């Protein structure tokens, strides 16, 4: 399986990455992808708040290892031909892409499920942290969501889906 894992400050080009993933491999019939974006109306404490910018910190070295393990776990569960994971760090503006996950398989179910699996596990195991800056200049670390823990946990039993 081809794998491409990157942690970078630069934006990524979804079209280019999608084309690269399957280029020259005529066994690929399905490419699923996910793009996560910096979103307004994020929850801060109990209140909805507009955010101005978001800064992503990570644990260099460990991040790449953690992403590698997650991709390996996906490749063990589904027949995949290629996986790309790109996660940005540093300061991002509203509407900017944060993360891209692309999975390629012969069939769509494997592509869809592995893409969702990688995102769910990344959300709870990859060492990234988001800090939001609000229009009044205040900065706050984003709290982990309980729903992310549940989303990851559902892959751990036998009954996937």
């Amino acid at each position, binding site marked *: 399986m081809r794998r491409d894992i990157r942690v970078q400050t630069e934006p990524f080009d979804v079209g280019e990455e999608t084309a690269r993933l399957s280029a020259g491999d005529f066994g690929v019939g399905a490419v699923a992808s996910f793009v996560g974006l910096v979103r307004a109306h994020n929850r801060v404490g109990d209140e909805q708040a507009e955010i101005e910018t978001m800064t992503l910190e990570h644990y260099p070295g460990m991040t790449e290892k953690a992403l590698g393990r997650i991709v390996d776990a996906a490749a063990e569960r589904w027949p995949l031909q290629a996986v790309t994971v790109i996660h940005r760090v540093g300061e991002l503006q509203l509407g900017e892409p944060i993360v891209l996950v692309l999975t390629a398989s012969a069939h769509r179910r494997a592509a869809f499920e592995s893409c969702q699996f990688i995102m769910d596990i990344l959300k*709870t195991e990859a060492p990234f942290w988001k800090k939001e800056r609000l229009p009044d200049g205040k900065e706050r670390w984003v709290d982990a969501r309980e729903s992310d823990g549940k989303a990851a946990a559902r892959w751990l039993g036998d009954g996937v889906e």
Partner: protein
Amino acid sequence: MIQVRYFARLRDQLGSPGEEMNEFPPTIGELAERLAARGGNWAEALGGTVLMAINQEMVGPDAPLKDGDEVAFLPPVTGG
């Protein structure tokens, strides 16, 4: 000697990116307890949910420490 690192919210709470320790307990869980025993911000930061890593791999509290290890305490992750 081990190198101890603090990240994100934890680093802000502790006011430190990390420290080196010449003496350390046998497990990472005991190290967390020893750090929390410093009181104040330390008790607060390390008393909540904290992830632990040794040499850049997530571990549980019983994981043993040895000379040369890179040890990290991490808040729950929020990437993606």
